[in-house]
């Protein structure tokens, strides 16, 4: 892991230097008078319990920077990535965000990559008047009045829950739902939101429980869910250990109801934690159209193109983690590239104007649209229900409709 990070850093530094040296030889194309770099502050949690997804995001961000700099930068300005590892700790994230915006003088901040850290940093970055590309899913992170420079590039929690409810209640016809969340801030708020949304769709929440993500045995909880008459389990946790234990307990009890929920249910790390491979059957993970194989077995063109381009940097073999993390990281750099080129500056007010009226920006992860009153960039049409056990090359098959 360390080698990869170090390697990534070296590549980026080399790329920045190479791009700067190459500037005089880059033909015309509206190069800015000075080649002052566009400084992007990047706050991934490369270590700590939330590192896995962040490492994926980091690959995408670094690849986007390298590609942009190789092509001559943004209107002749190289991107300088100022990356700081938050260690999955919101307190660290706050300190590092302050350092980036006040002493680092960055033009943009991307991340942190999870909601817990983002809740702490978004207000700080907003106060500093720096555009912030937000990759946390909880609703409170986005508010165009309070945080006018915060633009979300990932879906919201509500979108995840909507897709799960739509699949479980409308598609599968299940009317008695058990909801499981974990005791973290994310799990608690998502589970409560899920209860309201399930009821609003006319189904019954027959059992709801919050579980410590490190709880070693879930027989009690799953037995209660079964005894309540639940026809489906909806799971809202980002902890792969808890998700695996839920699947194992359902399997050990021989209770074959569908489990639907958070993308972690389909994470490849789950597979090796399962008592039996068949315990992953009848499990639906919420994902994205852009990361789903179509009926022809093919991925969308933009996704396949990025996979082919980045695969050599990931070792050349099959991609072993969720590709949407990489795609989203890559898109962050493309969005910044677009915003600076269109605004012809890094002035936050100009960047805001550009992004506030951007419709259908063609990213790899999604087709983003932001307006003055809605800074949630990912449309509902980007979401999908996937078969959890169909993981291949970082992507999934669509769940049957």
């Amino acid at each position, binding site marked *: *892991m*360390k080698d990869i990070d170090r390697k990534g850093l070296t590549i980026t530094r080399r790329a920045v230097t190479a791009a700067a040296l190459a500037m005089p030889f880059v033909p015309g194309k509206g190069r800015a008078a000075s080649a002052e770099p566009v400084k992007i502050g990047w706050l991934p949690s490369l*270590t*700590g*319990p*939330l*590192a*896995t997804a962040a490492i994926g995001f980091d690959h995408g961000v670094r690849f986007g920077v390298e590609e942009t700099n190789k092509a001559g930068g943004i209107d002749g300005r190289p991107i300088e990535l100022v990356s700081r590892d938050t260690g999955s700790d919101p307190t660290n994230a706050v300190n590092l965000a302050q350092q980036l915006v006040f002493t680092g003088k960055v033009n943009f901040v991307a991340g942190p990559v999870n909601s817990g850290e983002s809740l702490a940093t978004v207000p700080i970055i907003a106060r500093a008047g720096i555009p912030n590309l937000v990759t946390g899913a909880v609703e409170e992170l986005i508010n165009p009045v309070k945080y006018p420079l915060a633009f979300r590039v990932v879906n919201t929690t509500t979108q995840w829950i909507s897709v799960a409810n739509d699949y479980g209640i409308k598609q599968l016809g299940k009317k008695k739902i058990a909801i499981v969340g*974990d*005791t973290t801030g994310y799990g*608690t708020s998502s589970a409560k939101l899920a209860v309201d949304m399930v009821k609003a769709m006319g189904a019954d929440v027959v059992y709801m*429980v*919050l*579980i*410590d993500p*490190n*709880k*070693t*045995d879930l*027989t*009690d*909880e799953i*037995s209660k869910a079964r005894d309540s008459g639940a026809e489906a389990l909806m799971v809202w946790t980002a902890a*792969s*250990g808890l998700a*695996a234990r839920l699947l*194992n307990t359902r*399997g*050990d*009890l*021989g209770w074959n109801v569908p489990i639907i929920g958070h993308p972690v249910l389909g994470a490849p*790390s789950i597979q*090796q*934690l399962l*008592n*039996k491979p068949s315990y992953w059957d009848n499990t639906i993970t919420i994902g994205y159209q852009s990361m789903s194989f179509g009926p022809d077995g093919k991925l969308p063109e933009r996704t396949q193109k990025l996979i082919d381009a980045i695969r050599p940097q990931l070792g050349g073999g099959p991609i072993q983690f969720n590709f949407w993390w990489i795609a989203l990281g890559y898109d962050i750099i493309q969005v910044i590239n677009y915003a600076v080129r269109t605004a012809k500056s890094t002035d936050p007010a100009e960047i805001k104007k550009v992004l506030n009226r951007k419709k259908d920006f063609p990213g790899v992860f999604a087709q983003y649209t932001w307006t003055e009153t809605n800074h949630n960039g990912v449309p509902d049409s980007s979401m999908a229900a996937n078969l959890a056990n169909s993981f291949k090359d970082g992507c999934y098959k669509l769940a049957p409709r």
Partner: protein
Amino acid sequence: MLSVILSGIALGAIYSSVALVYNLTYATSRVLSITAGFTFMIGGVLGAYFIDIAGLPPILGFLATLAAGAVLGLAIEFIAVRRVLGRSDQHLWLLSTLAFSTIIQQIVALTWGTEPRRFPRLFKQDFGGLLDQKYWLPIGAVLLVAAMLELFLRRTIIGKLFVAVSDDTQAAIARGIPVNAVRAASYALAGMVGSLTGFAAGQLTFAYFALGFMLTLNGFIALAIGGLGSTAGALTGGMLLGLLTAFATHFFGGAFQNSISTGLLIILLLARPQGLFGVRGARMV
């Protein structure tokens, strides 16, 4: 309800084992080492590594894990305890063992990864049910370890040296007992106990880098309930805490699990500061 009780006892066995590790290190150094839960975590991670990745048969994987636990114990004593005790009477060991624990956790995170990983099945048995080995292995392991520790401390010369150093270090030095070597031996034994029970409970906990601090805290609560220095206290405290946690979760939900266990600690410390099996020490005046 049987599953709740069994789950609580298995969890209690894990807490008891960490309390036993505390007891062993405290006996010869008067140090409540923060590394207690980390020796357990290392047992799970190394067991999974030796069997699943290095391809050793389970028995060899188990022995290799024990050996690694002993080496870790010695390293903790030599790096984080011996020098600190030699230079200061203050409780600086709290910081040094905390720092050592953080280093262990970071090394495991960087080399093993931050996601939980599977621990191999040790005996052929179908999954599920109250007889599943994932419950009985940690329970059996901690009972066996506790019994052997009692025999060791009461019936062997080295065990009696532990007790002597624990009772009066200065007198032990005066009688020519090599206190440093005895202390190192107790830390090596503590490392073995932690890694043994971590290995035995691996199917329940998974091989996961982040277990250390949680177990260090809950092991301490178990120790405080049972009473410092008592093997029976460590067992009883751990089992009580495990059962209470399981029942609290069953009746009130997971959100209250930690509040109830730490609340219990406060009540017990107020009512019986020496714990259930501890002896109130006389204060020299």
